[in-house]
Every structure is written in C-alpha cells, then in structure tokens.
C-alpha cells in the first residue's frame, strides 16, 4: 500500500520506543497503515517479562536527558506502551516480531506482550510495506 509507513525498530531504549509510539499514533490518526517490525533489543522490550521494566535511554541522553524524560513522565506523559495500545484501537497498526530476533533472544510467541500481532520474516515485512516509506529506529 502506497500510503503505509513502515518502522523497522532495532533499539529498545524507552526514548526510542516513545518516538516509535508517537510517530505510529500520529500516522494511525491520519488513517495511514502502520507496519512495525521489531528486531533485536526492541523485540526484547516487547517481551512480557520486560515490557514494564525500565529500558534505559539512548547514550546521548546523559544524566540531563534522563532528568528531562523523567520530568515529562511525572507530568503525565503516557508511556510508549500505553500510547501504542491506544493508537492500536484506531486500527491500522500491525506489530510483527522478526523471526530471526525471536531465535536470537530465545523467545516463543507466547512470551510476547499482546501488543505484538505475530511473527514474520523480513520478506513478509517488505511485502506488506509495498512502496511505502521505511523508517529505521
């Protein structure tokens, strides 16, 4: 579909996942189709065992960045998982786990948070992305 936006998510820190959630929610509100492909540490963050834990921030955040992120959260900013959950209710968001990363992390589909719709390989991801833009986070 031409009007899709497709996120390949590699990083599993809370700030990058927040960026993913905000970009996805905005696209879903605009009635775009959103495909999210979770790899490596992003996939790890979507496991049932890890989703509610602190996933840290990107190295460039530093102590000052940490304080700013904490302040916004304390002021009531929705977490990335809550933002994604709400955005999914709009429809149009599909979240898939990369099958290679599932093997890497030793995860089964039953280990993943219900936010994740399924497991697929890179070929299926490209097929679903079609001519839409692909963004790597």
């Amino acid at each position, binding site marked *: 579909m031409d009007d899709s936006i497709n996120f390949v998510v590699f990083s599993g820190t809370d700030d990058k996942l927040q960026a993913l959630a905000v970009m996805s929610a*905005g696209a879903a*509100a*605009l*009635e775009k189709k959103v495909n999210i492909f979770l790899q490596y540490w992003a996939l790890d963050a979507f496991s049932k065992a890890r989703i509610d834990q602190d996933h840290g921030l990107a190295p460039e955040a530093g102590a000052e960045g940490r304080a700013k992120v904490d302040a916004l959260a304390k002021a009531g900013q*929705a977490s990335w998982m809550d*933002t994604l959950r709400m955005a999914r*209710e*709009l429809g149009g968001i599909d979240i898939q786990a990369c099958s290679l990363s599932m093997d890497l992390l030793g995860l089964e589909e039953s280990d993943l948070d219900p936010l994740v719709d399924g497991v697929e390989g890179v070929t299926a991801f490209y097929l679903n992305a079609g001519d839409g833009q692909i963004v790597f986070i």
Partner: protein
Amino acid sequence: MADQQVDARGKNCPMPIVLTAKAVKALVSGQTLEVLATDPGSVKDFAAWSKTTGNEIIEQTTDAGVFRFVMKKK
C-alpha cells in the same frame, strides 16, 4: 453544543489527536466533536489532521493557552 467532547488538556502530543480520532470514529457523518487541548502543536496538528482525513474544523478559538476546536465528521 457539540455532540461529543474530548478534554485533552494537559496531554502531550500525540494524545490530543489520538483521542480525537478515536472519538470521531464513534460519531456518524455530520455530528460534531468539541476538543480542548493545551499541547502547543495542536493548531498545526489539528489543521493537518482535518486536511488529511476530511473532517472539517468548523470552529477554532484560543483562550488563556487552551485551544478549542469543533470538528464535524465528514
């Protein structure tokens, strides 16, 4: 008086738009939704959302940092 209200005051981007999109989904064509928001990106975001989705902004006011929009479902 609008048919539905969304109070998104104090909520950060993209929540005002997400809540609005969700509320509009539940309306029938021609019904109206009033939204209150304080997110500083709201004016541009609601204009872009309206342009993309075709749901018209029929009223827009700003009062003491609160943006108020009335949307009509297409």
